[in-house]
């Protein structure tokens, strides 16, 4: 049997698996931390930078902290002659010229560098502005990267890019815990993956968002499969959707109050229960063999 590793041409230690969902709260982090736990010497990258939670489960001792900066312009008002070329150029309206002063709205700036590049008087230069941090630590044999966006910041894309650069050089199966939705932040994580796991829940909300997540991974031509989480004995619209559309179901995890409680308390279920250790080991194996 041809394995996915043969197709994508990576060794057993370098496969990158993105875990995404469309809808929030379906169990991305739950699936991610358990996969990272059952894989040997793995890397876990928490890219849900707005609400990173992996570290609650993969507990870290000492962490290395690195600031993530973006470039923002600063004006030298002695040099600025009020020509407004920068103001007219900025499509994000991050600059304004009011009362003979150039005002820069740092929060809105996308760091494209255009204003600084175009200023005919060299009145603008760029400085670093921190938007968040990346924490790195070890939890047993899992190397954990956590991206954390500062409260009040608009976009965490630069943090995710930075984490992706780091795991590119890493050795080991990499599990990428993605943000919810299908926006620009998710693209950044999916682009870098060799395989995508979509976690869905058994509700019509789940199906609607599952559909969107599938469109996204198809767009980037990524092999993928679905994990159905919190399954109830009743009719499952997400399962029916997968069957109708011939979408591979990788695993079904039942709704289980005991499991839910352990997870909510920050335990990693595959360390607590042999049954779930087997489930996640099997899940990882099946992905490595081609989903």
């Amino acid at each position, binding site marked *: 049997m041809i394995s996915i590793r043969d197709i994508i041409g990576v060794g057993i230690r370098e496969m990158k698996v993105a875990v995404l*969902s*469309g*809808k*929030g*709260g*379906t169990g991305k*982090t739950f699936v991610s931390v358990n996969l990272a736990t059952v894989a040997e010497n793995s890397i876990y990258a928490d890219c849900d930078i*707005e*609400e990173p*939670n992996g570290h*609650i489960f993969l507990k870290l001792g000492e962490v290395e902290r690195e600031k993530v900066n973006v*470039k923002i312009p600063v004006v030298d008002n002695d040099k600025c002659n009020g020509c407004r070329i920068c103001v007219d*150029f900025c*499509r*994000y309206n991050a600059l304004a010229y009011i009362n003979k002063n150039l005002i820069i709205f740092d929060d809105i700036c*996308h*760091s*494209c*560098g*255009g204003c600084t*590049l*175009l200023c005919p008087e060299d009145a603008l230069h760029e400085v670093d502005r921190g938007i968040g941090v990346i924490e790195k630590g070890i939890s047993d044999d899992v190397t954990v990267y956590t991206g954390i*966006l500062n*409260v*009040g*910041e*608009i*976009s*965490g*894309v630069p943090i995710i890019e930075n984490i992706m650069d780091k795991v590119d050089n890493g050795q080991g199966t990499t599990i990428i815990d993605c*943000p*919810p*939705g*299908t*926006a*620009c*932040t*998710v*693209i950044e994580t999916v682009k870098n993956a060799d395989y995508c796991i979509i976690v869905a*829940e*058994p*509700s*019509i*909300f789940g199906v*609607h*968002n599952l559909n*969107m997540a599938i*469109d*996204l991974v198809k*767009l980037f031509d990524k092999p993928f499969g679905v994990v159905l989480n919190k399954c*109830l004995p*009743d009719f499952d*619209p997400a399962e029916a959707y997968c069957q109708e559309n011939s979408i591979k179901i990788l695993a079904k995890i039942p709704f289980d*109050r005991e499991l*839910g*409680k352990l*997870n*909510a*308390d*920050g335990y990693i279920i595959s360390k607590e229960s042999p049954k779930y250790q087997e489930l996640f080991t099997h899940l990882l194996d099946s992905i490595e063999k081609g989903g």
Partner: protein
Amino acid sequence: MKQLLILSGKGGTGKTTLAGAFIKLAQAKAYADVDVDAPNLHLILEQDVIPQIADYYGMDKAYIDMDICNLCGICEEHCRFNAISFVEDAFLVDYYACEGCGVCQAICPVDAAKMVPDIAGELKLFTNDAVFSTAQLKMGNGNSGMLVTEVKKTMQEAAISVPLAIIDGSPGIGCPVIASLSGVDMVLIVAEPSLSGVSDMKRIINTAEQFQAKIAVCINKYDTNVEKTDMIINMCKEINLPFVGRVPYDTEAVKAINNGQTIVDIDCIAGEAAKGIFAEVLNILNV
């Protein structure tokens, strides 16, 4: 118009489930779904009219006209988003990487780089006895905050003299959430009793506190973890935020949702709890 926004930080805690219930209970004449990445409210509030649909234009996208391009590569060199690359014999723009800044257009010596309008999503407005404004952002787009603002504006303009509007928000604390917070009177945070839920709740409270709105907290599926429920209630006491109630885990609620109904359309314990919470919310909002 008083605006109630429902947020959570963490995804999947039950924002839409409660928003749907409140809209029914209030017989709200104006409501909106600003979770433009993954809108779901329409699935439980069936509309029997055809919506007014409008294209939403985000940032323009770059395009390199290869008939004019002299292959100098200065655009690729200056693109901070790595959106331009030379593939085989042409400069191509990566649609998803381009943030529409216009640097390539500004510096191209032969005017081969152009900025073209781009449809980034779709706005939908349903008008019958109530106004329902919603939208869907196209996959992979980065303009969600601007679209959220449009959805709210569309609702406000269509329902001027309505006393109460209910807005279903998005998860997280970033761009769409910040856009949704602007100008609302009250934020109800739907928390989940788990360590993740508590951590995310703290971050959304810190985000919401930067705005003028009143903030209250409720818990969904509280009985899945009673200790964490108590922890959240105590936290609210410590920071002086009104705690307005808790909803039990209820398989009947799941069934209602999957039938396209809200939890107050059927007789269930989750629906009863939602009624109590909504009464508290109205008290605080002073409607």
